[in-house]
């Protein structure tokens, strides 16, 4: 296990922005106690690298994309688990699902045991402002939050938790801080920065847009 972890050799870490840090950490916490029973479905090498960094001792990743497979193998992760191998899988994390992977949903539902968990990170209405969206472009198209909600509900999953990251209040604090900086009130700017962080996690609904949305879904017993 330690050998795998030691293969992270990138000299300087380009840390993701705050929204992605929160999202990846949230998935890591949810799956920490059963990481070896979790399959991570990812849409870019960036997702795979960040999840492997959080659980360097293990990692089962699923993606149809060669670039993701290459990134996972380069970092010493387990070879990509085929989606047929569902023995012992009790949870799935799905980071920014692509619309063309929608057919995976029914398979996940079928194979997860009762009470099995599906953790999803999906872009919200403000996701276009995420720098990572420009840096790590996906092959295909992101599945929208509203379409995911409809599809997951239709297949039978039940929503347990849902919250947004970097909503309008946080954006407002940010711009207020910028304004303070422009009039040379650096102490106010710092206070606004912490106002932004305090407001960073927001309850999510259609009227409260956010950059990223984290959701926990459960297969009914």
């Amino acid at each position, binding site marked *: 296990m330690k050998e795998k972890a*030691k293969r992270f050799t990138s*000299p300087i870490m380009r840390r993701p922005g705050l929204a992605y840090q929160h999202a990846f950490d949230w998935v890591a*916490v949810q799956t920490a106690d059963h990481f070896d029973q979790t399959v991570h479905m990812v849409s870019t090498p960036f997702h795979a690298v960040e999840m492997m960094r959080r659980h360097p001792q293990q990692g089962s990743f699923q993606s149809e994309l060669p670039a993701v497979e290459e990134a996972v193998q380069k970092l010493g992760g387990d070879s990509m688990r085929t989606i047929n191998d569902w023995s012992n899988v009790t949870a799935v994390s799905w980071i920014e699902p692509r619309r063309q992977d929608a057919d995976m949903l029914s398979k996940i539902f079928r194979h997860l045991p009762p009470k099995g968990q599906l953790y999803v990170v999906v872009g919200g209405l403000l996701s276009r402002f995420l720098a990572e969206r420009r840096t790590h472009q996906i092959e295909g198209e992101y599945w929208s939050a509203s379409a995911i909600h409809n599809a997951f509900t239709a297949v039978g999953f039940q929503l347990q*938790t849902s919250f947004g990251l970097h909503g309008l209040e946080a954006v407002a604090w940010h711009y207020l801080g910028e304004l303070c900086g422009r009039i040379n009130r*650096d102490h106010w700017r710092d206070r606004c920065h912490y106002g932004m*962080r305090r407001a*960073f996690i927001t309850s999510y609904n259609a009227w409260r847009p956010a950059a990223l949305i*984290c959701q926990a879904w459960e297969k009914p017993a």
Partner: protein
Amino acid sequence: MSSTRIAQAVSNLDAWLDTVRADQSAPYAGYGGPVVHWWQNSLNYTGASLDWRYEGIISGYLTVWRRTAAEKWLIKAVRAGDDLVQGQLPNGNFHCSSFELNPYPAGTPHEAAADLGLLRLALALRTADKGAEAERYAHTALKNLKEHYLGRLWDAEAGSFRDQPHVPAIVPNKACTLTEALFAAAEWQQSSEWIDRYALPTLEEVLRLQLDNPKRLRGAIPQSRMRGEIVPAYFPFYIARCVPALLLAYRHTGEEKWRDGAKEALGFVRRHLDDDGRLPQVVYPDGVNRYPQWVAPLADVLRVASLMEDEPMNAWQQSESLVLAGQLPSGGIVTGRGFGSQVSQRFSATERPDFRDCIPVAGWVDKAFTYLAGRLPENTPLPSPELHISERPCHLRGRSAVWTETIDCMSLQVNGQICYQWQKGRPWAAVAAPEVMWK
């Protein structure tokens, strides 16, 4: 403060540090736990963090070993050194060395501080005729210094170290921690090459940034200069951390300017002590952000003050009392007060504190540990530790809550419901409700 009180405090800190070690089933062994800080918090990642805590932990255990002459303390210093040796990545960086920004390697000044701890350990072992054992610790530190700092962060044109390879910037307190490590490396290598080539030019740059005026800011050193622009934020804590490197330069060269710079810097810090012995968090040209005010980290400032020969230590007595008063029944020392006041900058000591005001953090407690270890009397064994459950009423975003710490767990409850829980030794929090996800 009585030596009995200090000895009991050190014993309890040692026992507490043992409780927050990540176990062997985690990817890496080492001291873990949640982190709260001015810049950011790391409440989710709680695994071993190979950062500046190792400077204080290793130095503290070496001091306790010297003061008590009991071998078991050297063994603990060696165990901490082993954490770093085993946690070094092939490129010289350390696993999860970014403290409040974890889980990422290449943390600054954290890796340099860890190097400093390793080199102090190596030097102590060599002095104790354990040179063969010492090699591996020195080798680990030198590999990090060569590959990461000299190889990637040295800016030959500017004659100083950058904070990131691609951004022309200097962060004085980080550069000073690094130069302390370079001085220790020079002692190990018995060559002043790195001092002359890297450390002194970097410190020249730090001195150039030090302010003479306005009077209110005399002696202050700005947080950074980025792309040629000074960031006008003056952190007393970070300015204090510049002082040891300046004193090393004075001892090496005998030039007064280094000692004068150190005195001015510490003078700025001392002038900002309030009547209770607390420091503001940040001073700006046009204002102050007072909160959060440090408690455990204040011990690092005390350590620095004690290095200055003619420093009036009676000015710091209140601060020492604050550090000791911050020790919890569970053994750790709280990080600070007023984390919930970062936006309003209004604080009431009579109201329930923000839950982050209750959290002891290994990367802050180490600073109290090493300072208090230095206050132990010679040849007196430490008393047995006395750890108890710690329960503190607090609030979570305005809701009444209780922070509880036992030997094996830290948790936060609101209305009987657990919102946050860390099983000590585990790399991630077991529970972190969205309202506690606060970076």
